[in-house]
């Protein structure tokens, strides 16, 4: 039975980060929520103060995607995008990922796998970095990154640990 609601995170080999999360919904819906812009805009990164006004998804191998988050109150934005490498609807999406202000070398290869069991779905995400140094650089909580600047909580945690 797939456990829902719990995020499990771990390292895999020396270049990858893996996390899983179970959902109480059939796989087709979970896949849809990850691939239709009007649905992605409802949940991905749209925490307090942030919206996702640019959400372009060309879901085909070789197709590109582009996301830009905006925080109107603070007058900042953060963009990222990449290219689809492999797609098996509704089982797998593999794409490259690069933030506009990337804080690690090269692209990250993001593979999202959707496993169905009954009416539940397990999502497994594998973040594959170019090499061990890039992966470990991400794990080391980069303080200067655009991402860190953008995520309020992240910045707070980093400040606490920098002192």
């Amino acid at each position, binding site marked *: 039975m797939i456990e829902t*609601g719990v*995020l499990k*995170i*771990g*390292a895999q080999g*020396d270049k990858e980060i893996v*996390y899983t*999360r179970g*959902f*109480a*919904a*059939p796989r087709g*819906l*979970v896949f*849809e*929520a990850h691939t239709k812009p009007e*649905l992605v805009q*409802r*949940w*991905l*990164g*749209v*925490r307090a103060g942030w919206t996702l006004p640019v959400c372009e998804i060309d879901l085909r191998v070789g197709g590109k995607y582009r996301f830009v988050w905006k925080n109107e109150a603070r007058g900042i934005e953060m963009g990222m995008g990449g290219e689809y490498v492999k797609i098996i609807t509704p089982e797998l999406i593999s794409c490259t990922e690069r933030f506009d202000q990337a804080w690690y070398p090269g692209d990250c290869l993001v593979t999202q796998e959707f496993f169905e069991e009954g009416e539940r779905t397990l999502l497994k995400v594998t973040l594959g970095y170019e090499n*061990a*140094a890039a992966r*470990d650089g*991400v*794990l*080391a*909580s980069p303080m200067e990154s655009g991402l860190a600047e953008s*995520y309020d*909580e*992240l910045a707070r*945690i*980093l400040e*606490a*640990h920098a002192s």
Partner: protein
Amino acid sequence: MNSRSQLDQTFAALADPTRRAILARLAQGEAPVQELAKPFSISQPAISRHLAVLEKAGLISRGQDAQRRPRRLEARALGEATAWLESFRAYWEGNYARLDTLLEEMQAADKKPRKRTNS
């Protein structure tokens, strides 16, 4: 900050639930190996192997008492290693909580496709 290989070891060390439980125990104060092994249904050599992983990762160290060889937590190293994990977890848990809500709505809409409104 930790060196690269050190960080890798730290992250791997934290991935195991037994090792996290040992760290939680040590957060309350230093303890000898026998005492650390008590709550677990695994052998003392197995516990010693876990301790070796934690020590190599810089998360624990050995106390002065040569006889008891108590282990103690290296809180600063643990803080550095968990900072990224905590922020990453908070970000994605937030995302997926919103996704849960969306999926509920989608399932409700699937059952009553003609009763959807623009509310």
